[in-house]
């Protein structure tokens, strides 16, 4: 059952452009703050991954579930995560989504269909599969989309999830963001396959490879998989080939990645490419780019100020909410 993808219109394209730019602006600011020693937390940047982060997430509908990892803050923006929420959570403030209890980029909000990740990956592959089971049991036309990197596909629960979703015909779109490195380990040391998507065949589900730096392709293939899942067509494994343009975390200078490789991928920057596409479509010009820069810069500055001025939680909050009363 192949569903014809719906081409994104002007509004959708402009939305996606905004989220990509906002995501990058937030991360650039986080990087500055981290290097300036103003953050107590680690940072896990998804720079270079903006196309798949936004494209996949934007393909979901409001009732759907997205289960990102800690590198996928940008994927949460189309579902309503705000710059303020990103900074208050990184700054461990009382008014953040995890009230200072979760780690920096581990926020989520069930009301917006955002699962709050843990560090062990891909732990939310089975959890999202379970959300999809609930949807199926209740006859709801909702879809779950967990994200992970290629590194986590070596783990057993990745395979258990694909198998369970396949056996039970669950509405899950498994997205693997293949960003070239699992911390410092390249894929050839992790698997003999050249495409993670090939793993799908072992579970009799479709495996699709997309150019992870081309947001239109990311969006369309994700949308196709999401709508097939929604219509009872079962799960899909979607692999996006991209590049992690920073180290694993803020402290990691990533000297194991050659400068040539970084230069090569910089030529394929997803935002530059999208700007060219939008310009060719007559949807963007120099002024539009400048206006967007101003908009996201302001939004980030305001959010950072808000976070810095927000109070820390009181110490005794450490023991609240361990249980639901």
């Amino acid at each position, binding site marked *: 059952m192949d569903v014809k993808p719906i081409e994104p219109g002007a509004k959708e394209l402009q939305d996606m452009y905004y989220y990509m730019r906002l995501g990058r602006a937030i991360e650039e600011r986080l990087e500055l703050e981290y290097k300036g020693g103003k953050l107590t937390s680690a940072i896990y940047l998804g720079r270079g991954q903006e196309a798949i982060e936004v494209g996949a997430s934007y393909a979901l509908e409001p009732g759907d579930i997205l289960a990102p990892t800690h590198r996928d803050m940008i994927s949460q923006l189309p579902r309503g995560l705000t710059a303020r929420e990103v900074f208050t959570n990184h700054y461990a403030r009382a008014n953040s*989504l995890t009230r200072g209890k979760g780690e920096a980029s581990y926020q989520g909000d069930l009301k917006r269909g955002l699962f709050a990740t843990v560090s062990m990956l891909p*732990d939310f592959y089975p*959890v999202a599969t379970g959300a999809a*089971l*609930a949807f199926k049991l209740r006859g709801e036309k909702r879809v779950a989309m967990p994200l992970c990197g290629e590194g986590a596909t070596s783990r057993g*629960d990745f395979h*258990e999830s694909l*198998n*369970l979703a396949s056996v039970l015909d669950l509405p899950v779109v498994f997205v693997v963001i293949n960003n070239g490195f699992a911390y410092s380990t390249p894929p050839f040391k992790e698997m003999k396959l050249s495409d993670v998507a090939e793993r799908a065949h072992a579970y009799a589900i479709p495996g699709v490879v997309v150019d992870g730096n081309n947001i239109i392709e990311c969006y369309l293939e994700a949308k196709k998989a999401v709508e097939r899942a929604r219509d009872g067509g079962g799960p899909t494994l979607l692999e996006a080939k991209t590049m992690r343009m920073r180290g694993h975390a803020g402290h990691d200078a990533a000297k194991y990645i050659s400068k040539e490789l970084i230069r090569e991928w910089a030529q394929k920057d997803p935002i530059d490419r999208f700007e060219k596409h939008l310009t060719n479509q007559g949807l963007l010009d120099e002024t539009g780019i400048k206006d967007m820069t101003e908009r996201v810069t302001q939004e980030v500055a305001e959010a950072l100020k808000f976070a810095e001025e927000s109070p820390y939680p009181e110490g005794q909050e450490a023991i609240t909410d361990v249980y639901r009363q």
Partner: protein
Amino acid sequence: MSTANKPKETSYIEAISQALWEELERDPSVFMLGQDIGDYGGAFKVTEGFLDKFGPERIIEMPIAEQGFIGMAIGAALMGMRPIVEVQYADFISCGWDQIVNVAAKMHYRTRDAVPMVIRGPSGGGLRAGPFHSQSPEGWFAHVPGLKVIVPGTAHDAKGLLKAAIRDDNPILYFEHKYLYRRVKEVLPEEEYVCHIGAAKVQREGSDLTIVTYGAMVQTALLAAEKAQSSGVSVEVVDLRTVFPIDKETVLNSVAKTSKAIMLYEDTRTLGIGAEVSAIIAEEGFEHLDGPIIRVSAPDAPVPFSPPLEDYFIPQVEDVLAAIDRLSAY
């Protein structure tokens, strides 16, 4: 009264089946996940007949993938369902460890989202089943904040606590002792009842010393108490029922009365539940004590397979009587 009118006794395992059945009937968001729980009726036949009654959408058979289906249960719980996971033997719960301690246990703390789920499995030894089918994993999980851990010692509590667990909004580990499955039975109330999670129960009143215990050791404690009575020692048996949260009040009240305490547990000695209760008594009941707090437990070894080895390993009535003798000298 003729025997025909004698009320029917319900075994521990029947009590568990009844609790599951009644909760599945009561609440459409309750469903079960587990290996061989459908046609086969479960490895111990707890769910025999469930598939016919509730159908494959509520009695969902799983492949061998504990981490996968425990994770799935968490996801379904976050979406408002009330999954019950049957782990075929409690020992196999270790395969789902990460999901339980990192995802389920910490979810409400981080996001205030409820994870209403029960993971139940047959635990404990005495059946000559060896190191992979006899473990007592309650201590592993009682140490993880965010989880509740239940180990019932009677048919009455097995039913009432399982129903309470299914209705609770937190992730719960429920360990049913397989040695008790068909060995203990009692007449259960005809009307519906639910036990309170976190409440211990005095299973036998006494005045000379207290045995704090839970699970299958409740039966061992009661047998020992009966024998001690004939030599003039009056033993009180406190059944924790829930090993996290621990009902400190009932334990301390009993120790205040008897001034002497024995911790009896089937789990291995070091850092077991009895070690924790000892610390509670030492910290908060010290002024009542007339003697040392004594632990009677399994030794720090895996559960062995050969009968003489397992008998040595699991605390026996004689071991408890020896501890009673020792403590009575104070």
